[in-house]
């Protein structure tokens, strides 16, 4: 053990911390200064407010769905209404919450700072991205208000093209616009990472948070345009009546499936990779240790992105793809599972020989590790061809993707929000209440979704609003869990808002974390850095941090 390896946690004395005088928040005043900003941090906050708004709308739909499913009969609402509920839940949660969640909020806020840059490469495009988000969101809400859409978030043809008279084209247009919001965010990130790293910040000195956003951005940029053209074709088929997906006119409904899933599978990696980046940062900080196997984790992120492009037909195993095709995609699905396993073990081993504390972000990270393992392993169930035959299109699938998306991604998002809340706002959130919320969420989540695995194996199909009575007990358990989960999500909304005025002042590095973002004030100034830093240390270099904190005078403001 070397003399400089001591990484004793010396949190600065919070009681003496004061808020800095000039921050990105009070730099300019007035609504217009926010609405026309180019500052990536302000845009991140705008996004944060926006996605929270849509999250609760999507969550309300989820609540209604679970309420209906308390009883076997379809007694709470008409069939058509229920179909609209789950369709809107899916569309809002996927496109208006999960896809932008970490990248547009935490990614936007932190990436330039982590790289040592003053802003993203294209601030105006960043703002455009947010406007497109709202335009798409308004169009989707428009579809809702006009009467809803009931295609499911998957827009399956020929149902969506010829057999529904709901607002399919409106919803598809909304999603199209949201796609471009996503593309521009990804494009911005890629250019920033390639061209705007500070001197000395080599690729392998970047935080893993940046690596995962890089991988996710590749997916956003390459995958989303395919969704755009697919939805355009659906809209044209509805409006003009041509038969590109209609077998009676020579078209092929499977063509739609291929085109749709070519984007929508990488989309799930767009959703999860940024969350994985958050977990790397959180586990490292609260173990006081560099991430075990940095290179492995970095390459795994890129591997997931690359492999993720080649597995789309595992959503179509029983849909008439050839046997040969099914074999190839099943094999590739098994291969894409391996990098996630690698990452999970690397995170676990990051804790070995560390010095671990259990603040709220770390609790969410633990939750992520357990739930993502379950979610990921159930993905292996589904990638096994013969097993998929029985499990596909049932509640097993619903449980699987909620485990990875909600148990995984949403927990990672909350971990990140709590972790970087002091940096973004200069305030600490209340620790005991947040721990309570984390535990509540974890319990509620398991109660909601574990029974759904059982329901799936029993055969209960998804998107059913009435079901045979023998499935009721498990559905009731699931709804009970959903109530608890709802409470778990309401709490952060309340106490985080409270903390803006009444939270303890954070100081610039309340967690004593490495990373350039923690070396500047909280909240940061608009230009992030007074002078561009020159980086001469590795990522997660706690020895460097210790050396530095020993030397500096800790003042804030």
């Amino acid at each position, binding site marked *: 053990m070397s003399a400089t390896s001591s990484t*004793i946690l010396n949190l600065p004395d919070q009681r003496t911390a004061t808020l800095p005088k000039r921050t990105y928040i009070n730099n300019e005043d007035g609504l217009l200064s926010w609405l026309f900003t180019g500052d990536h941090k302000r845009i991140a906050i705008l996004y944060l407010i926006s996605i929270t708004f849509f999250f609760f709308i999507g969550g309300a739909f989820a609540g209604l769905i679970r309420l209906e499913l308390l009883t076997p009969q*379809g007694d709470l609402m008409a069939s058509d209404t229920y179909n609209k509920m789950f369709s809107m839940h899916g569309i809002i949660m996927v496109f208006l919450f999960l896809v932008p969640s970490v990248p547009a909020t935490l990614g936007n806020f932190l990436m330039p700072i982590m790289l040592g840059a003053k802003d993203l490469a294209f601030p105006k495009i960043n703002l455009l991205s947010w406007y497109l988000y709202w335009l798409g969101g308004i169009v989707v809400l428009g579809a809702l208000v006009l009467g809803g859409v009931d295609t499911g978030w998957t827009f*399956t043809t020929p149902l969506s093209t010829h*057999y529904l008279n709901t607002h399919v084209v409106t919803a598809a247009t909304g999603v199209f616009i949201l796609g471009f919001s996503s593309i521009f965010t990804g494009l911005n990130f890629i250019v920033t990472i390639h061209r705007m790293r500070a001197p000395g910040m080599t690729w392998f000195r970047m935080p893993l948070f940046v690596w995962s956003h890089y991988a996710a951005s590749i997916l956003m940029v390459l995958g989303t345009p395919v969704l755009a053209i697919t939805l355009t074709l659906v809209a044209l088929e509805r409006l003009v009546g041509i038969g590109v997906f209609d077998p009676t006119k020579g078209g092929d409904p499977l063509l739609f499936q291929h085109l749709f899933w070519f984007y929508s599978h990488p989309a799930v990696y767009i959703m999860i990779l940024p969350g994985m980046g958050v977990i790397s940062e959180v586990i490292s900080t609260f173990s006081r240790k560099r991430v075990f196997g940095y290179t492995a984790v970095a390459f795994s992120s890129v591997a997931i992105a690359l492999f993720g492009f080649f597995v789309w037909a595992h959503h179509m195993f029983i849909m008439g793809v050839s*046997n040969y095709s099914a074999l190839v995609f099943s094999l590739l699905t098994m291969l894409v599972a391996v990098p996630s*396993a690698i990452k999970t073990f690397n995170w676990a081993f990051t804790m070995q020989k560390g010095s671990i504390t259990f603040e709220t972000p770390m609790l969410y990270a633990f939750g992520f590790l357990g739930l993502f393992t379950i979610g990921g392993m159930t993905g292996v169930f589904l990638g096994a061809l013969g097993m998929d035959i029985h499990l596909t299109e049932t509640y097993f699938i619903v449980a699987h993707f909620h485990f990875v998306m909600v148990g995984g991604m949403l927990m990672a998002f909350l971990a990140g929000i709590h972790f970087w809340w002091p940096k973004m706002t200069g305030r600490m959130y209340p620790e005991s209440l947040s721990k309570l919320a984390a535990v509540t969420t974890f319990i509620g989540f398991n109660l909601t979704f574990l029974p759904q695995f059982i329901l799936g*194996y029993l055969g209960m199909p998804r998107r059913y609003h009435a079901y045979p009575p023998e499935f009721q007990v498990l559905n009731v358990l699931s709804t009970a869990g959903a109530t608890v989960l709802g409470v778990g999500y309401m709490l952060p909304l309340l106490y985080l808002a409270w903390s803006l005025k009444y939270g303890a002042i954070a100081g610039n590095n309340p967690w004593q974390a490495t990373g350039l973002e923690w070396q500047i004030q909280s909240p940061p100034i608009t230009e992030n850095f007074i002078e561009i830093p020159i980086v001469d240390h590795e990522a997660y270099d706690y020895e460097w941090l210790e050396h530095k904190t020993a030397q500096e005078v800790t003042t804030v403001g």
Partner: protein
Amino acid sequence: MHISPVLWQFLVKWLNASALFPREASTIAPYADALYFFLLLITVVGLTFVGCLIFGFAIRYRKEKHPIAIQVEGSTLLEATWTIIPLALFLIVFVWGALLYFRIYNPPTNAMNIYIVGKQWMWKAEHPGGQHEINALHVPMGRPVQLTMIPQDVFHSFSIPDFRVKREVIPGRYSTVWFNATTPGTYHIFCTQYCGTNHSAMIGEVTVLSPDDYEKWTQQSTSGTSLAQNGERLFASMGCNACHSGSAAARGPNLAGVYGSKLQLTNGSQVLVNDAYLRDSILNPSQHITAGYAPIMPTYQGQISEDGLIDLVEYIKSMQSNYRVQQTLTTSESNQAAPTTPGVVKP
């Protein structure tokens, strides 16, 4: 199954009795469950392992007990280990899953065939003997049954969870699934592909009967005309007999005995004449012209429903000679009024 059958039965029955596990009612079900239990096992083991690591490290290296963190470089050995072991496990799962898949989707050659037409929002089962069921399916136990399925409108998916079989019912093409039911009883049929308003109502019941009961049922439930007989009627009324009369100078190829044979097409390729081929050649004849014949067959796209196509396919499958074809031709070319059969509605 390599674990004791007693243990297996106990496990499955106990879980089933607790409403946590479906019944195993087909020959393939135990195979599917075996893979499932294996997957559950590796998931539980993996989760336990990860959980032990996390909790173990969290307790052993918590700040109070381990105030100084030791920066570890990493370990290629560990990386290799946790790359190779998961990969190996996943590849085992891949092979097992692929084998199971081929078992589930490759019917034995002696399977009896039943047609399923899915439409919003019901299942129609058409037995070759002329039994028609809606949202119900009667099958004999102990015999392989193949279902040839097609929808009338949108995607549906035919699922019998207790048999562990499911297949998408795809617009524009036949898809098949087979099973061999082992236990008499009734089991759910679900539509598992979202298909619109009453997707949740597309629930049916498959009734597995002992061979004797099944015989009785076929006799009681027949509509009087088999599918092939309906097809024969259609064949004449749609004018197919005019070109496919079976005579030497006929404009269309002879269809007697064509099912199951290998056909040479005008574009040089060879095809096996199966259900899908017959259906396609009625709807898209220009891509299925037998060598030596002119591409003059009109298309019947939009003029026959899927039920009608099934009737025609069944008829052609059963056609051994052209005797009756030529009979109907003579009848239609005569100027006598055709006798009407009351109550027969053209499908």
